[in-house]
């Protein structure tokens, strides 16, 4: 592990990090090693976000750096092992709710963390979730909602997924303004993620465990 790369990225020194990565690629360093360092840095960023030292714009910035590193490194990986996506995730704001800031941030962070994400948008009816799960076959489904009453919609959505016989094939996470562990129990989701960092962590836990 290159501590310098991890530290620079955790400190959000965009130009310095990218220059360093470019240099490493030129030197012929292992691209997987670079990606691992970037992921370690993201974990450090996640911790700082957790303690509120970092805020949403910092998180977005870190995600942006990670995306640029991935873009630089990925072509090298594809030569050897083909396109590498860790897994598939569907995300959407449930029916009756139209708030998308949080959902978009989670989508972005999950995407830059190496997952293939399908964003269904806002005010998504339960049947659309069901239909898209059949088509896209994700391992993880994220239900987002900001309004207090979105939890009723979430519950309906989880029930519809269950009725369609898809519940065992996926893990469901919920997130958004009013959500907490109580709501998770009520809607019968698998986990509640309090922010984008937690969302990525859940994807990693669930999908990583499958491989």
């Amino acid at each position: 592990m290159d501590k310098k790369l991890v530290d620079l990225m955790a400190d959000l020194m965009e130009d310095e990090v990218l220059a360093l990565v470019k240099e490493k690629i030129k030197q012929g360093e292992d691209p997987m090693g670079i990606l691992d360092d970037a992921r370690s840095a993201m974990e450090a960023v996640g911790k700082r976000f957790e303690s509120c030292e970092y805020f949403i714009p910092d998180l977005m910035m870190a995600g942006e750096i990670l995306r640029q590193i991935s873009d630089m490194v990925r072509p090298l990986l594809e030569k050897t092992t083909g396109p590498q996506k860790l897994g598939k995730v569907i995300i959407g704001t449930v029916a009756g709710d139209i708030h998308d800031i949080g959902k978009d941030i989670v989508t972005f962070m999950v995407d830059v963390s190496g997952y293939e994400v399908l964003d269904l948008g806002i005010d998504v009816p339960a049947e659309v979730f069901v239909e898209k799960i059949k088509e896209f076959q994700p391992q993880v489904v994220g239900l987002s909602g900001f309004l207090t009453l979105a939890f009723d919609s979430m519950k309906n959505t989880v029930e519809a997924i269950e009725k369609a016989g898809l519940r065992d094939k996926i893990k469901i996470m919920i997130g958004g303004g009013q959500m907490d562990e109580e709501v998770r129990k009520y809607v019968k989701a698998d986990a509640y993620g309090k922010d984008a960092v937690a969302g990525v962590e859940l994807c990693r836990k669930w999908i990583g465990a499958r491989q």
Partner: protein
Amino acid sequence: MEDQREKHLRIVFVPSYREGTCCEGYTILEVAQEAGVYIDSACGGAGKCGKCKVRIVSGTCSPPTREESEQITSREQGQGFRLACRAQLQTDAVIFIPEKAIFKGPASRKEFTPRKIPIQPAVTTHLLNAAQPHGTHSTPLDTLSTFLKSRHGLNGVTVDPQVLGEVAGLLEQPGEIAASVWMNREIIRVQKGAATPAYGIALDVGTTTLALYLCNLATGKILTSASATNPQTIFGEDIMSRIAYSVHHPEVGVKRMQRELVNTVNEMIHQVTADKRLSADDIVDMTVVGNTVMHHIFLGLPPDRLGFWPFTPTVQTSVNVKARDLGIDILPSAYVHVLPVEAGFVGADNVAVLIAEEPYTRDEISLVIDIGTNGELALGNKSRLLSCSCATGPALEGAQIKCGMRAAPGAIEKVKVDPQTFDVDYKVIGNQAWKGEETPGKFRPVGICGSGILDAIAALYLSGVIRPNGAFMQGYITPRLRKDEKGYKEFVLARGEETPTGRDIVITQRDVRQIQLAKAAIRAGCQIMMKLLDVRLPDRLIVAGAFGMHIDRDNALAIGLFPQCKPETVSFVGNAAGHGAYLALINRGKREEADRIARWTEHIELATEESFQKEFLQALAFPERKG
């Protein structure tokens, strides 16, 4: 000796939603003091003063004591009232702390300055000499109508069915009759001889606070006012939780909330009328404003659909309902006029703010900001007016802040930080002097309210302790800046030895983030509307709402709560919603104006605006420091 038992009971105090824990046998007052919840107890918990009266919403306590049966009426006991210093907790409980009595008089916390406006009330009184001799063939109604038409120019006047009987009786006697006519079309009161003066009530139903004004309809003068905590806080702290309560208790939920609301409004009416030696029947008119959810609940309409996109209200135009149908204790045949709403989250309160401030009569561009749990914004002038609502959340009112509390005695409401030494001076609600002035005040600080939080964050930002992106500075420049036991940064405003709980009052990094989120919601709304109207900066900025009256203008500008206007163009107008309700009470033209403006104003749904996310993220940071 410290109690070694595990504190397994969870006690929630409403409306602050602070929580405390204890074991069985603790009194409510003990738990409240430990949790930093303020309950007045002048006698120090001796069961003598009766000031610590609270209401048990759920949970079980020890049986009432002798002191309690002396100080609490049986009716109150039936409603669950107890003395906090006497009732010992036996289970988890939710405790409602009533607002210290009902504030009354001009010192009401929801204030505004009435403006001159023609006095044209909806109810006018006409003197008629229409004695109807025995044996006449004309019905009493015909007789009155004829008189009102020929002498007073009023066509097609009807009579409230319950007043009709009185009319017949009065007409049989000689002498003049005073008829009170509503909107020139319905007689709602008849009196023998000269009319007694007519009075009206303007009511502002806030999510947390009710404000009521008693007015003389002939002079337009406000005789007295009252405010009280909205009793619906026992069903949930914000509007969304009230909607949820209704959704999860079909049919009965909204009725319960309406009943609690009407009961409290009636108590306020009794108080102000008794104060001015009036009877309920002297009140012949009433206007009501409130956000759309409060508006629906007041009318007994389920607010359920307001909880889901597209937040469609059940009724949008103004509504007139007989007082007796709502159970409001004024003249039973009087009408209660409920002002119109604009949209799901832009309610009659915002319409009332608009008719009070009249941005639609001017050439200059006004930005009207009404700050509450839900911020409402309006921008425009006489050719176009936009409105929107933004989810500011309760942080600005002290909720979801580590040491936050509502503006009540014991709350730090003003803060100064010395930019060199980082020493802190503060002022506590209930005390006249600042802490630095050395006169020991009656109240020691138990928490910090919205205006104090704003002051503290602005001062810490201006002194460099908080960086432009909202993070605390690197390092520890003063012992006040420290890490808590979990490693999170915080700044100490008041040390344990200054507080009655012995606990430090701090501003945490998370608190700063909460305020950033609230301010970004307001700013993003402003920016989007300014772009839509192609306005760089509004010519005038009007800040409405009780919260606005207590915040420091320069500090609010320093952290970018508002667009960067010139300070002199900013005005704070207090409870403009209450003002609007008052204007609609004394001038019926204002009611038509309200209906017209509610339809004419263009409502913007921020969440569906494409640039909202970008604007929101940009607005999180603090603006550049000036000077």
